[in-house]
């Protein structure tokens, strides 16, 4: 009897786990948790969980004839697995909020690949379509950074300022997710803007302006000379995937 109940509970949890994964893929919320390249894997796992639930549920009936049904089934294992399912279904899917920058820090140059990347894809994008990540990548991997000076910039991100910046500067930042939210890294570009001090820290803004170079600690960094900075709603997909 104990085993029978255990099997049913196990089957229920498996089914819920599978349905949770599949429903998050269906709604697109899965991208608030993991990089898109893992979605297929998670989809297959979701299907596998549903199939396993079916097998376990069928076993509920057949196993009662067998001798081991007197053995008590460990319930605590099952309770543990209900934690992600309940958190998943009950806590609304929300992206990592920019307040996490305080814990994680922000980087102005993440060398996203140590090899010289082929930047032709990024170069073929119209300058105003490039994201914060695209610009930082272009800068890391281009030999001639002067070619970008004066190009129009149109990026969206959250406002971040810290002691390293002057009063007329702020950073426009985005989180990048390589694997899952656990490795979220904030990337930021410096923006030159006279009214930087009045911007709401961590609020989302759209920055339009021209690109320029700034020398800092002996390195050339991209800086945006802002022409307009407007507050916007957080984008539906707040992360950038390298």
């Amino acid at each position, binding site marked *: 009897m*104990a085993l029978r109940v255990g099997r049913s509970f*196990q089957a229920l*949890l*498996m089914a819920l*786990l599978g349905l949770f*994964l599949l429903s*998050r893929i269906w709604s697109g919320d*899965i991208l608030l*948790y*993991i*990089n898109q390249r*893992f979605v297929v894997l998670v989809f*297959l*796992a979701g299907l596998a969980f549903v*199939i*396993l639930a079916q*097998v*376990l549920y069928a*076993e509920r009936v057949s*196993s009662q004839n*067998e*001798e*081991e049904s007197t*053995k*008590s*089934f*460990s319930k*605590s*294992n099952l*309770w*543990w*697995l*209900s*934690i*992600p399912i309940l*958190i*998943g279904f*009950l*806590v*609304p899917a*929300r992206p*990592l*909020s920019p307040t996490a920058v305080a*814990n*994680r*820090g922000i*980087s102005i140059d*993440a*060398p*996203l*690949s*140590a*090899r010289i990347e082929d930047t032709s894809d990024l170069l073929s994008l119209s300058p105003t379509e490039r994201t914060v990540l695209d610009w930082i990548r272009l800068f890391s991997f281009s030999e001639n950074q002067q070619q970008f000076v004066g190009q129009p910039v149109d990026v969206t991100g959250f406002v971040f300022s810290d002691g390293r910046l002057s009063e007329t500067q702020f950073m426009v930042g985005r989180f990048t997710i*390589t*694997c*899952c*939210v*656990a*490795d979220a*890294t904030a990337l930021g570009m410096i923006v030159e803007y006279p009214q930087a001090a009045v911007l709401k820290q961590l609020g989302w803004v759209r920055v339009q302006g021209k690109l320029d170079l700034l020398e800092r600690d002996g390195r050339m960094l991209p800086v945006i000379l802002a022409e307009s900075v407007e507050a916007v709603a957080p984008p539906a997909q707040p992360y950038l995937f390298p």
Partner: protein
Amino acid sequence: MFKQTPAVSSGWGERITAHLPVVILAGVLALAGIARLQQIFNWQIEWLLVLSDGMSNFSAVFLGIFIEAAPYLLLGTLASGLVEVFFSPEELVRLVPRSRFLAVGLGGLLGLFFPVCECGSIPLARRLMRKGVPVPVGIAFLLAAPVINPIVIASTFAAFGNTPIFWLRFALTLLIAVGVGLLFLFETDMSQIIRPMNADLAPSFHLDFGHDHHPNEQSPSLKQKFKKVLLIASDEFFEMGRFLVVGALLAALMQTFVPQTWLLSLGQGPILSVIVLTLLAVLLSVCSTVDSFIALAFSSTFSTGAVLAFLVYGPMVDIKATLMYLRVFRRKTVVILIVLPWLLTLVASAAINLWVR
């Protein structure tokens, strides 16, 4: 039906875990409920806002780790089920080379054929050892497989290319895994190393119709065999899954409340930087298939040795792996499995920092 028989609850781990999940579940739900009420009624009370924000970041990180790792854990338990059903102990032992040193070395390279990360290698390693593969071989496999496998080789190459770090990562991992594995050659009593099979796994394992017990019975059909693989896989998924849950909970807690910036500002010296990045590897608990991309982010601010240590030690030991180790091995063994690779990594990486650069 919820009571645990004394025979089942062996050791401190069992006693704690018997009631802990319900307590944690209740606590998490209460906090989530308060945070949700704050969002619905839009109360602008400062500590509630902090709580609400922390809760949503916490659950994002927790679910991120869990969703990412669950498919790999399932792959590992499916592999374990396949080994259980389709290999008899005699067949498996025959595959192990006679020379013990050769066997341990091959154990370190076995990951090339089982491309699993740390969540998957632990159930598989335990299965192999219980089926008669010598413990040193199993431990070499356990420590090396998360790195020495085709997926991780590809992702490390994508991140670092043909650089010293790429080659050193695999060389050092193999060296440490085989070294630690060889150490276990001196302990001949397996029960001193591995915890006995617990009864809560018993239901499906008791079927055991592959070989010995009932030589007269007809061998089960392929369909029955596959059903058994699936049952073993799901039982093991639940058994190991709880450590994934606890590991992800702890990692998410630390990521929400312990500033990484603080940790990163601690050390830049040739030795301190190695210590800091190995600690960070444990805290982050990211899967070995992607950690090289994360290591890249540190390569501009940290020494080569420290980045290498992150790549070598992280896949061997992190929060969720440690909890799974506690399930499989005796506590003494777990301490060895955590400390010895750490010391070896530290020595090798510090040496690289001090003399090679």
